[in-house]
């Protein structure tokens, strides 16, 4: 008998089957993910979890029979005797329990892992056109081996290849081997005169041949050749700018946070390495850690340009636009002192927008506050004006938690061809 411990075997043997199943049921699962994300917190949504899809979509048909006369043999007879007729009250009971059972049957429930969930969740989103164009330009260059060349720098000399070619040439031209000469010279030591003359002449020709055919010729030399290939940048930095002046309530901060989270998850799907920079501002800006960003108390006036200035400085000092994909999301209630407008627009159009892939402005407001009744805020008006001038800004208003995902989805939705062509 053998006992084998299989516990150490690699697990997830049916991972591939599972992926096949998800691929097959993709449309259905995606619908289910969307539906379940509507009534869940974003934090929970991204945790994955159970979804249910209509069982019809993945049905595996078989020849099945139904109806007809049925014979049943059952255990546990209590009081029946042969010939009894049982009224079909059982029918109605079965029917009553039918739908309840049927629900379970109609919906096929299973658990998605976090990764699977996020994949499906973000599947029809992509980086906006603007970002893609920028991305194409902002490629770095890498080197790749590409065969051998006749010329190159000594550092790239390929010894292997060179010696091989030299050997081939020497063999082809029949360059005498040193051993052959040594053998003749040994013979020279003890032989008669006539033979000596012959040998001397032979050795002379051989030596001459050795001189004429060099061990390594310049035509043998090969260098390793490298080609430059464009390499897309695989790292991104995400700037979170937020107004933390007294007018921002907890609710507004919460909305902003949710938006940042989505953006972060989205970016981590697209880039290998994502950094986050938190900049909060009142009438002056500072870079803070996450906790302080969302929870640290601060008060003061509002000067948006200070935050933009801070971002600009950080970009200049730490994130060169050629190496990093820069994303920025600004959240604010829209208050800004009117005198600041010029500075803001100048900073944005001259400094920040040219280097960033994407700049979103999210105007948050109190829950229930209709966005239509109130006059547009000063920042909103300013950004609208900039947009009208052609600045690549994305601006949205949000007042409810449930609007966050639709707004996000709307910003990054994969555009169809004609829409792409339109703007």
């Amino acid at each position: 008998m053998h006992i084998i411990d299989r516990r150490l075997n690699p697990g997830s043997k049916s991972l591939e089957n599972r992926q096949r199943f998800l691929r097959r049921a993709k449309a259905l699962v995606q619908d289910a993910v969307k539906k379940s994300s509507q009534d869940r917190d974003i934090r929970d949504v991204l945790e994955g979890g159970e979804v249910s899809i209509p069982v019809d979509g993945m049905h595996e048909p078989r020849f099945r029979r139904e109806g007809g006369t049925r014979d049943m043999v059952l255990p546990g007879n209590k009081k029946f005797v042969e010939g009894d007729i049982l009224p079909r009250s059982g029918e109605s009971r079965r029917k009553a329990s039918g739908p309840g059972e049927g629900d379970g049957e109609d919906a096929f429930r299973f658990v998605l892992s976090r990764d699977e969930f996020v994949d499906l969740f973000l599947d029809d989103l992509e980086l906006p056109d603007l970002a893609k164009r920028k991305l194409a330009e902002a490629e770095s260059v890498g080197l790749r081996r590409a065969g051998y060349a006749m010329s190159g720098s000594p550092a790239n000399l390929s010894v292997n290849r060179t010696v091989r070619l030299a050997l081939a040439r020497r063999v082809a031209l029949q360059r005498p081997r040193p051993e052959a000469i040594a053998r003749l010279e040994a013979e020279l030591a003890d032989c008669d005169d006539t033979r000596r003359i012959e040998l001397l002449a032979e050795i002379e020709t051989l030596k001459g041949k050795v001189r004429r055919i060099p061990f390594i010729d310049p035509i043998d030399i090969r260098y390793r050749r490298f080609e430059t290939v464009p390499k897309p940048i695989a790292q991104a930095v995400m700037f979170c700018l937020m107004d933390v002046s007294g007018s921002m309530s907890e609710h507004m901060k919460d909305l902003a946070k949710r938006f940042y989270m989505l953006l972060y998850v989205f970016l981590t799907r697209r880039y290998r390495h994502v950094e986050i920079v938190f900049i909060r501002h009142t009438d002056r800006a500072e870079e803070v850690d996450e906790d302080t960003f969302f929870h640290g108390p601060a008060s003061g006036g509002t000067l948006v340009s200070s935050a933009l200035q801070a971002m600009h400085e950080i970009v200049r000092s730490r994130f060169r636009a050629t190496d990093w994909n820069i994303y920025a999301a600004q959240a604010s209630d829209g208050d800004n002192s009117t005198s600041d407008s010029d500075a803001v627009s100048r900073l944005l159009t001259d400094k920040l927008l040219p280097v960033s892939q994407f700049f979103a402005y999210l105007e948050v407001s109190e829950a229930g506050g209709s966005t239509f009744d109130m006059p547009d805020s000063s920042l909103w008006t300013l950004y609208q004006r900039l947009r009208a001038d052609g600045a690549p800004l994305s601006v949205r208003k949000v007042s409810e938690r449930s609007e966050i995902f639709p707004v996000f989805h709307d910003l990054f939705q994969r555009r169809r061809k004609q829409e792409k062509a339109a703007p």
Partner: protein
Amino acid sequence: MTCTAGRLFMGADWDFQTLQGIHDACEQIARSELGLEFYPNQIEVITAEQMLDAYSSVGMPLFYKHCSFGKHFAHQEASYRKGLMGLAYEIVINSSPCISYLMEENTATMQTLVIAHAAFGHNHFFRNNYLFKQWTDAEGILDYLDFAKSYVAQCEERYGRLAVERTLDAAHALMSHGIDRYPGKKKLDLRAEEKRAGDRRSHEESVFNDLWRTVPTGPVKSPELLNTERRRKLLGLPQENLLYFLEKTAPRLQPWQREVLRIVRHIAQYFYPQSQTKVMNEGTATYVHYRIMTRLHERGQISDGNFLEFLQSHTNVVFQPDFDDQRFSGFNPYALGFAMMQDIERIVANPDDEDREWFPDIAGTGDAMAVLRDIWANYRDESFISQFLSPRLMRRLRIFHLHDDPAESAGISVDAIHNERGYRRVRSELARQYDVGFIDPNIEVFDVDLSGDRRLMLRHSVVKGAQLNEADATRVLQHLADLWSYDVSLVEADGTDTILKEYMVSPRALAAAA
């Protein structure tokens, strides 16, 4: 004061040394006291996740990839996580060596139970039952599965995942109709054929009587009818193994598609005996583990506490709820099988008059194990129940028979109960429920319109008015038509040849192009 010298283990913990000891102790009892014969054992310890993996690929250790297994896995994982479903303690594979999977979280008692149950009970049954001997090749199955897996993977690489998946979908839909139910007639070779023809001739010569010439024969068959008969004979019709028929005769299948159909067919065939012997297989294993555990306890190799733990899970396994119980979902094969085997043991050892009347062959013969071994080797569920379900057991389980005729408006009639008048009827009716011939709808390839549009004609012989579920039947026929690549029709006819319903399906364009 307890004597612990001979104990196999203490408490609930176990290690591989313990498993080895348990196995050896069980083997000794199984061989010498129960007289079992089994394949060599291979015991594999696995985790819950691996158990779920095994579940979703029909319990086999290696299997080709297909999304339907992923679907089952997802579903079972979900219900396992929610606690709706417990996992089996073991899975055993009909192969040589016989592989038993044990869950790592079983206690030592449970491992003993599982080893006795799977590694000896099931193992003996697999090795000796005639159905398994006839239909499965225990030595070859793992190699075959390995071949199947790599072949399907190769096909996917070569012909694209989509095409392979579509073929497998279709084959899976027809899987229940890809089984040879009867060992086929052996084709005679030329020499045997000649010999038979000669024998026939000499027989005719020896019994020649001119009088026969004057006896009127039946009506002369028309040439058309003869033609049809010849064609049907050439195609081997009627043919109930739909997958086999497609594999051999579907006109436009690629060679690899035929091989895939063949793989699915072989696997269906491999599981065919298991579906026919659920009650016997589980009954055997349960009976064997009960005997072995009891012996171990008698010998003092397991403690009283561990034996109680065993009894608790044993009674859970053989629990049979009544029909009006919430938990009722048909007969529990473990319970029915175990009860019948115990009953047989009693009949053999100390029968009463009723037993002598009902089972004259085995009553009082004395050697229960010999009788049981013979039964395990030579019966399947249907024949086992129809011959060995005793009146006493029917009374104990209080079995009765209901007849539900939709045409009868008054209600469901109680046809027979566990009394003198009813024993035989209840028993044969219960046996019928385990007869595969009645479980699967009887669908045959009836004919092919070779001179016309190559339509494949199927026929469903309706039994007791149960027709096919329309939505499902259409879908399966769609798959069938895709494989056949021409139209497929199905008629449902009852015993009097009245056509009840007709289906007609054309292949999808995609499949024809593939």
